């Protein structure tokens, strides 16, 4: 345990074309290529994917959960961004 462990990679898998990549979990690997192979062996043993992304976990920039309300606040009072904000008479169709 003297050696530093291999870096952590986050794994994203596209299960079939037409869908976006989705976070599946993480793997350790010495380099990018090994990360792809490890991700394939760990997360797609039953053909769960047609495409894999791996990215070093320490390269991900994330919002701070402690700041969630402040961060997402600006969207909360803008109810006019939703279609239900607008009253349209029932007689008007296809709107």
């Amino acid at each position, binding site marked *: 345990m003297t050696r530093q462990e291999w870096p952590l990679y986050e794994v994203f898998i596209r299960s079939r074309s037409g869908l976006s990549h989705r976070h599946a979990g*993480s*793997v350790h690997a010495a380099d990018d290529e090994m990360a792809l192979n490890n991700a394939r062996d760990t997360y797609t*043993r039953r053909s769960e994917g047609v495409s894999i992304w791996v990215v070093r976990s320490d390269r991900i920039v994330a919002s701070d959960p402690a700041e969630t309300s402040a961060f997402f606040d600006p969207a909360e009072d803008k109810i006019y961004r939703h279609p239900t904000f607008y009253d349209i008479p029932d007689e008007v169709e296809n709107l």
Partner: protein
Amino acid sequence: MYTQGLDQAGKSGPDTREAETATQLDAFQARIDAEEKIEAKDWMPEAYRRTLIRQISQHAHSEIIGMQPEGNWLTRAPTMKRKAILLAKVQDEAGHGLYLYSAAETLGVSRDEMVGELLSGKAKYSSIFNYPTLTWADIGAIGWLVDGAAIMNQIPLCRCSYGPYSRAMVRVCKEESFHQRQGYELMLTLCRGTEEQKAMAQDALNRFWWPALMMFGPNDAASSHSAQSMAWKIKRFSNDELRQKFIDVTVPQAEFLGLSVPDEALWFNEDTGHYEHSDIDWQEFFDVISGNGPCNRQRLAKRRKAQDDGAWVREAARAYADKKAAAEAAA
């Protein structure tokens, strides 16, 4: 595959709760009560984090050690088909261990730390893997009973309050059904075979029945951390509830095989709709958990050897990665 009510082995550790106010704790419990999932970087009580690290890493260790009893039969599987199936199952166990280590790492513990605790003997793993696999029928019994018990334990964990753990469990449970079905089918094949084959199946059931029941952990009255885990919705059902559920579904499966469950006192109580069974030998359970089962030393020695034997591979891979990175930086 296999979690167990091992939480009585927990230790409290240093008190790092300096900043936990009643307000924070109440807000946290309110989220749990509202069935909100807790995610990796969210605020959580230190005790919740520690409980999860302990449980998820024990679970991961169990998957990794669990490869050994089955791996024991890989080279001796009776047919090519059975060998391929067993190999796929053992690979799944490795995969499950990896999903779980990765879930535990989101709580701020490193993979090396967890592996180190397993190898030093400090961390526990499920007691079931300290029993030997003496015959081919044991492979069937493990799939049917051990994975069956694991499924009972794991289905509720898919709804566990900690997001990364619950997602890992969803993935595990999807794969677990194959494990149990291949085990039952293996038993069925033996039971429809020769007298000797059926006797081998019966013998495997005899040896694995009680250890499988022990997988659910101590009786509720003796399970010290259960109440807190239930309040945090890490755990959804008590050890005894899950054990009863397992017995109720498994006894009829044994009857279909034409095998008898090794419990003279077992009977079906029509009033409750449940089977009543004899008391479990908890002394055996605590002996195995504390390191004195039939195979404890062998399992850890083998794991340590694998870790040591792989050291040069890990070093070589890192050296290669460093060299490649240096070459790219120079280019």
